[in-house]
């Protein structure tokens, strides 16, 4: 089985080698379960995230290349944004390409002296000069150039950074297949610090399965569920942007830096409106029938010549609409799409960028920062033209203030003031849910301070619907159990959107023909173990749960479940780590 093979690449020495880690993969499945062990092993304790010592681990799992929707790659690294565990997931063709080029994981360490990109074809590594690609204005151009130069069309991933990664914006992302991203926590800056412009990986091998007949049977069941039931409908019809209206209706849609939790013009930026007027194409990750990637076709006239147009395809999702729409008070869908395109071109995490701009606007409104700081820009809710310029400034960093913004909202506020409304949790900018206490507790305690860690927002909405008010203990237990299970999904590695299909029993079934015999109980136990490992790693790197403090703003603006209570939030955080029992 090739899953157990791990490719190590040392950028400093331009050397690569392969090690057999089959045992690790059979103990810990793959993905995040394996990656956290590799990171723990390879990363020197206390390493600076932008030092050559930082390590990037890409990992896939036992279901990759075998079952539908097992299409995600996990990346672990030390985050330059939070200074601790960095974890982000991306789809596109990355997962299938890694597995079919012959590896279960790829470990990248060291740093190159001059810009390079890595090409990995059928398992072989090539170090290619990228000095000509460094500084190219658009990450889309970089993708285009590499696409022409490298083989493997159709079975390759082209991961690359934009200018933001080169300029070490702490929330720069790594873009893959143009529209998917290792978005959160700054993997792009880690690439940039290593002078690593891109990684292209291709492969087309086959995978032996232990029991082909039952493999096909389980496959067919999963395929039926994905295509003939309602389980995935939300994702393929309108897509994640379907959340805009319902969240707005219950007053859980963070608006204007969460001064409010509903947006009077939400209908303008809703998934329905975008689908009706702009949706130009839907595309899929490799091996996923759902095709949740929604691309808007934005047609713009050139002002200097009549009847001369360009049409840009721009990927949108709920989180981008929140961050670059409602959070900034932007209601013009075309303006919002331009902002999305700009973060794409420069290679930045859309959520972090939006939250940073929202804080900047409020700080400017309150006179905490001045025209000198902003280099003359006058940020104003809804004015997307100013935001378009500000995004570029964060990358170019013409003043100290923009250098602060490039460090993330927590840093910018700690230096300039306005911490009470700097929306970061554990150093990571807030996702788009002000649904109730569970969401915020999840942002605080989730191993990567993301909404996807434990999905408290989804619990809040269910409680609201049912009119229930569970005890703090119950909420904490739920979040731990949900986050634990998600470690299994991220070890297989299955897309979270397919969590309704990959229920514990289904995972047990799917693993059997591949040669794993793990029952539901064993899976759940392993999930909790992986979650503990991630948190132990964080503690090793200096994480202190007692210092976790959400911004005051979340207590001021009411949620659909009422005001979040500061005292019970503090209790809940304490209880979470007691129950997690590191």
């Amino acid at each position: 089985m090739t899953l157990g093979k791990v490719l190590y690449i040392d950028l400093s020495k331009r050397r690569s080698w392969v090690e057999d880690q089959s045992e690790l993969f059979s103990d810990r499945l793959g993905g995040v379960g394996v990656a956290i062990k590799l990171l723990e092993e390879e990363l020197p304790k206390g390493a600076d995230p932008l030092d050559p010592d930082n390590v990037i681990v890409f990992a896939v799992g036992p279901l990759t290349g075998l079952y539908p929707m097992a299409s995600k790659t996990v990346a672990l690294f030390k985050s330059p944004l939070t200074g601790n565990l960095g974890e982000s997931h991306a789809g596109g063709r990355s997962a299938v390409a890694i597995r079919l080029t012959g590896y279960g994981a790829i470990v990248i360490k060291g740093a190159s002296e001059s810009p390079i990109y890595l090409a990995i074809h059928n398992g072989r590594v090539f170090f290619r000069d990228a000095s000509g690609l460094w500084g190219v204005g658009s990450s889309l151009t970089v993708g285009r150039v590499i696409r022409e130069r490298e083989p493997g069309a159709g079975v390759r991933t082209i991961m690359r950074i934009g200018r933001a990664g080169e300029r070490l914006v702490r929330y720069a992302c790594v873009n893959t297949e143009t529209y998917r991203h290792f978005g959160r926590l700054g993997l792009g800056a880690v690439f940039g610090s290593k002078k690593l412009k891109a990684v292209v990986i291709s492969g087309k091998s086959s995978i032996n399965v232990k029991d082909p007949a039952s493999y096909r049977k389980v496959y067919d069941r999963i395929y039926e569920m994905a295509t003939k039931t309602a389980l995935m409908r939300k994702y393929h019809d309108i897509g994640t942007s379907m959340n805009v209206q319902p969240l707005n209706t219950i007053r859980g849609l963070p608006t204007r830096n969460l001064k409010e939790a509903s947006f009077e013009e939400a209908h303008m930026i809703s998934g329905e409106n975008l689908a009706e007027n702009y949706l130009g194409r839907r595309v899929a990750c490799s091996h996923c029938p759902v095709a949740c990637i929604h691309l808007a076709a934005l047609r713009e006239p050139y002002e200097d010549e009549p009847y001369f147009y360009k049409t840009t395809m721009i990927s949108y999702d709920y989180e981008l609409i929140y961050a670059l729409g409602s959070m900034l008070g932007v209601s013009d869908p075309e303006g919002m799409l331009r902002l999305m395109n700009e973060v794409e071109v420069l290679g930045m995490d859309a959520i972090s960028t939006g939250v940073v701009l929202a804080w900047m606007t409020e700080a400017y409104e309150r006179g905490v920062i001045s025209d000198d700081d902003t280099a003359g820009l006058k940020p104003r809710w809804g004015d997307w033209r100013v935001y378009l310029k500000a995004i570029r400034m964060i990358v170019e960093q013409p003043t100290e203030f923009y250098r602060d913004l490039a460090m993330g909202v927590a840093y910018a506020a700690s230096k300039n003031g306005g911490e009470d409304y700097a929306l970061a949790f554990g150093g990571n900018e807030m996702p788009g849910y002000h649904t109730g206490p569970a969401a915020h507790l999840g942002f605080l305690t989730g191993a990567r301070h993301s909404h996807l860690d434990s999905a408290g927002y989804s619990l809040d909405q269910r409680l609201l619907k049912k009119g229930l008010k569970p005890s703090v203990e119950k909420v904490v237990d739920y979040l731990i159990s949900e986050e634990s299970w998600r470690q299994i999904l991220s070890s297989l590695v299955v897309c979270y959107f397919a969590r309704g299909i990959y229920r514990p029993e289904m995972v047990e079934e799917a693993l059997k023909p591949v040669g794993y015999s793990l029952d539901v109980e064993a899976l759940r136990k392993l999930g909790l173990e992986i979650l503990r490992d991630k948190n132990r790693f964080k503690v090793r790197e200096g994480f202190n749960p007692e210092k976790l403090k959400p911004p005051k703003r979340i207590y001021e603006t009411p949620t659909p479940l009422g005001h979040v209570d500061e005292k019970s939030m503090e209790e809940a955080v304490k209880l979470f780590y007691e129950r997690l029992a590191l």
Partner: protein
Amino acid sequence: MSVARRVAIVDNERCVGCQLCMFACTRRRGYGGLGFSAIHVKSTGGIESGFTVIVCRACPDPPCQKVCPTGALTVREGGGVRLNMDKCIGCGYCVDACPFGAIFWNPEVNKPIVCVYCGYCVDFCPHKVLTFEEVKP
């Protein structure tokens, strides 16, 4: 006599690039991954511009067969070819001869991969890009 059928592309503009057809083709042989796939999906110049699907069109007068030096490829009645693996020496001439690039290569066994016109992939196209139809002369 059975009718000769082939996998045909109804509308490649409907293709979302999920590649489930490619996985189906290798899975039919009892493997995961893509090593034995005789159908290929790639973008037409970046994901933004859509996809192209490449599969044997079952030519009535197949150029791949004409260049086969060992007689491993023979014309199938009604159109298309059949590959006799025992006779194939892995020269790769057939790959170069196909104008569509619809003959693929498996480096693991160093032999071409030729569509067998079974239609299995069509059952796994969720977006009605493919159909399994009679070859019309």
